[in-house]
C-alpha cells in the first residue's frame, strides 16, 4: 500500500511540475512592465549584435542604471551566432527585447510592424542626414549604432619595407603594382600571402566585397534597386568586368587553396602577426588586433577596381541601427537610454574609448586612439566614401547564401564569363521572388 501511495504521489508531483512550468512561462511572457512594477525599478532589455562590444555596453548600462535608476540588461549575439535567427527566437521567447538591432532596410522589411517612431528624439539634431538611413514611411526609426568602414587594411611596417606608399594607391594599376611589388619580396618580408582574405566567412565576399560592384558608380542607390529587381544585365556592365578583375586579383594574392577554411580569427591573426601585408576587413577588427598586441601602424587603401574616381573611395556606412520595440512597456526608458549614449560624455566615452566605435554624431569631441578609426574619419572628411548597398539584401542572406558561393566557384575556376552570367541569373531569380 505504501508503495502505491508513493507512486501516486510521484505521478501527481510530476503532473503539477509540468503544469507549473508551462504556467510560469506564460505569466512572465510579454509583460516586462509587470515584472518591473513588482521590483520597483524599470528594466529594459537590449539585444546586441556585436559580441565584441558586449563588455563596453554592459559597463555604460551599469552607469546609466546608477544615474537614472533604469536597469538595462544587455544580451549579446555574436561570433558564430546567426543574429537574424536568434532575434526571431528572442521575439518568441516571451520577453521581447525593448531595444534590438536591425541591420538595414532588408531587416526592417521583416520587423516593420515592431519599430517605434524616433523622429522627434533629441539626438537626431546631431546626425548627418545621410546616416539616418533606416526610415519607415519617411519617419526615422533607427538610431545609428556607429559608423564603420572597411577596405584593404595595410600593415605600414611591411609596406615601408617593401617601398610601397599606401596613399598613392588610387587605381587598379596602382593596386596591382603594389601587390606585385610585395609579392616579389614575400620571403624577405616573412609573408605567407599578400592579402588576408576569406571565403569561409560568407559575409565577407557576399556582402562586403560584392558591395564594391554595386556602390562604385554614379547613382548607386538606383542601380542597386534595379539590380535586386533583376532589371540589370550584368554581363553587359563594364563595371561588373572591372569588379571581376579586382576580385580575381585579391583572390590570386591571398592564400588561395585555403580560402574556404580560413575563418575570421585565422584571417585577423594572419594579419596581426605580420604574415600578410593586407587584410580585407573593417575597423571592427581593432579590438581583436589590440588583443594580439600589434605594434605596427595601419590604415586603409581602397578597393581600386578601375581608374574612375570611385576606385579611390572606401565604403563607409551604418552597419546597424538600434530600434525601439513599439510594443515595449518601457518605451520611454528605452528612448532615454539611446539619448544617454548620444548626448552625454559617458556615452561618448563608451563609443570611442571602450567600444572603439566611430560615432555617427557630430557633437563628439573625443579623439579615437584607434588608427583604423582615424583612417576612416580621414576618408570621411575628404568625401572619399562609398555607400553600403549590401544592407539592402542582408535580411534575406542573398549575399551570404547566393553571391558568396558564386564568388567561391569563381575563385576555383577563374572563369569570368561564367561568373558574370551566374551573378546575372542570381539577381534575376532574386528579383522574381520579390
Amino acid at each position, binding site marked *: 500500500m505504501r508503495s502505491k501511495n508513493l*507512486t501516486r504521489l510521484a505521478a501527481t508531483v510530476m503532473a503539477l511540475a509540468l503544469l507549473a512550468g508551462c504556467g510560469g512561462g506564460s505569466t512572465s511572457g510579454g509583460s516586462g512592465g509587470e515584472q518591473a512594477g513588482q521590483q520597483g525599478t524599470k528594466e529594459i532589455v537590449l539585444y546586441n549584435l556585436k559580441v565584441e562590444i558586449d563588455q563596453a555596453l554592459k559597463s555604460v548600462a551599469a552607469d546609466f542604471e546608477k544615474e537614472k535608476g533604469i536597469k538595462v540588461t544587455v544580451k549579446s549575439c555574436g561570433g558564430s551566432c546567426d543574429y537574424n535567427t536568434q532575434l526571431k527566437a528572442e521575439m518568441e521567447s516571451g520577453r521581447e527585447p525593448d531595444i534590438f538591432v536591425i541591420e538595414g532596410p532588408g531587416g526592417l522589411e521583416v520587423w516593420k510592424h515592431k519599430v517605434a517612431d524616433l523622429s522627434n528624439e533629441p539626438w537626431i539634431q546631431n546626425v548627418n542626414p545621410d546616416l539616418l538611413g533606416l526610415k519607415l514611411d519617411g519617419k526615422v526609426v533607427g538610431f545609428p549604432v556607429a559608423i564603420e568602414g572597411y577596405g584593404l587594411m595595410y600593415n605600414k611596417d611591411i609596406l615601408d619595407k617593401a617601398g610601397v606608399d599606401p596613399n598613392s594607391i588610387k587605381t587598379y594599376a596602382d593596386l596591382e603594382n603594389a601587390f606585385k611589388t610585395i609579392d616579389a619580396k614575400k620571403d624577405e618580408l616573412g609573408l605567407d600571402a599578400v592579402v588576408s582574405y576569406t571565403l569561409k566567412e560568407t559575409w565577407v565576399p557576399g556582402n562586403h566585397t560584392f558591395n564594391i560592384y554595386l556602390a562604385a558608380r554614379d547613382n548607386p542607390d538606383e542601380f542597386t534597386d534595379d539590380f535586386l529587381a533583376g532589371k540589370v544585365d550584368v554581363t553587359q556592365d563594364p563595371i561588373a568586368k572591372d569588379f571581376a578583375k579586382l576580385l580575381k586579383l585579391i583572390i590570386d594574392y591571398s592564400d588561395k587553396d585555403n580560402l574556404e577554411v580560413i575563418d575570421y580569427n585565422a584571417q585577423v591573426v594572419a594579419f596581426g602577426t605580420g604574415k600578410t601585408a593586407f587584410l580585407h576587413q573593417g575597423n571592427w577588427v581593432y579590438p581583436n588586433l589590440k588583443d594580439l598586441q600589434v605594434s605596427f601602424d595601419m590604415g586603409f587603401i581602397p578597393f581600386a577596381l578601375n581608374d574612375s574616381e570611385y576606385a579611390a573611395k572606401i565604403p563607409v556606412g551604418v552597419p546597424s541601427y538600434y530600434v525601439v520595440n513599439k510594443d515595449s512597456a518601457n518605451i520611454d526608458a528605452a528612448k532615454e537610454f539611446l539619448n544617454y549614449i548620444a548626448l552625454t560624455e559617458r556615452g561618448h566615452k563608451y563609443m570611442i574609448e571602450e567600444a572603439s566605435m566611430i560615432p555617427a554624431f557630430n557633437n563628439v569631441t573625443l579623439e579615437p586612439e584607434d588608427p583604423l578609426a582615424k583612417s576612416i574619419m580621414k576618408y570621411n572628411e575628404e568625401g572619399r566614401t562609398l555607400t553600403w548597398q549590401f544592407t539592402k539584401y542582408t535580411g534575406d542572406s542573398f549575399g551570404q547564401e547566393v553571391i558568396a558561393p558564386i564568388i567561391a566557384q569563381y575563385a576555383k575556376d577563374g572563369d569570368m564569363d561564367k561568373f558574370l552570367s551566374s551573378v546575372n541569373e542570381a539577381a534575376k531569380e532574386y528579383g522574381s521572388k520579390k
Partner: protein
Amino acid sequence: MRKSLQDRLVFWGFLIPTLFAFVMVIIIPFVLGIYYSFTNWKGAAGAAINFIGLANYRAVLHDTRFFYSFSLTAAYALVAMAVINLVAFGLALLVTQELKLRNLYRTGFFLPNMVGGLVLGYIWQFIYNAALPELGKALGASFLSRSMLAAPRSAFFAMIMVSSWQYAGYIMMIYVAALQGVPQDLLEAAAIDGAGWWQRLRHITLPMIAPAFTVSSFFTLVNSFKMFDTNVSLTNGAPITEFMGESVFSTELLALNIYKTAYSFNDTAQGQAKAIIFFVVLVTISLIQVFLNKRREVEM
C-alpha cells in the same frame, strides 16, 4: 473493483504528464507545421499569414540546392551507416575478448558520445584546419598540409570520420550487449565439432545478433539522415562545389538546407514544406528497413 480503479488512476497519473508533453511539443507543432507549409509564413512574429496552396512544394521541386542536399544526405547516410556499424561491431568484438583493462576501453570508446555535437564539430574543425596541417608541416607530409575541409570530397569523408568517432562507441555498446547474449554452449559445441573462429562468427554469432543489427542500422541511418549540429559547426556547408550549373554548398546536408531556407532566406514556410517532404522520406526508409531486417532474424 476498487483495485482496478486504483490501477487505472496510477496508469493515467503516469501517462498524462508524458502525454501532455508529447502533445505540446511534438503533435501540435507537427500539425501546425503541415499547415504552415501551405502558407507564405515568414517566421516573424505578428506578420500576416496567407494560404498559398501547393506553391511551396512546387518551388521545392525546382530547387537545385535542395536536390543536391537530398542526394548528398542519402549518400552520407548510407556511408555513415556502413562505416559506423562496421567500426562499432569491430570494437564490440574487441572489447568482449579476454583483455586486460577491457572496461577502460569500453569507457574510452563510448566517451565521444558524451560530447555535444556542436562542441565536437568545433574541436574537429580545429584538428582538421590547424592541428593536422601543422603536423603535416612538421613531418614533411604534403598530403596533410591542406585541410581536409578545403575540398568537397575530402570534406565529405571528414564528416564521416567525425560522426563515426562520435557514434561508434554508442553502437558498440548495443553490440556488446548482444554478443554477451549469445549462448556459450552453442559456441562450445561448435568448437568441439571443429569450427574455427571465423566459422563460429559467421554461422552462430552473426545470426544470433541479427536483432542488434536491425536496431543499430535503423538507429544510425535515421540519425545520419537527421545530422545537423556537427554539420553546422564543422563545415556549415563549405566548401563550394558546382552542381547542375549552380554553385552549391558541397557539405550542406538536408537538415542544414531546411534550416537555411527557413532562417537565412527568410522563407520559413518553404523550409517547412521541405521538412514535411523530409519527414515522409524518413518514415518510408525506416519502415522499409525494419521490414527487411525482421525477415532475417532468427527466432529462438
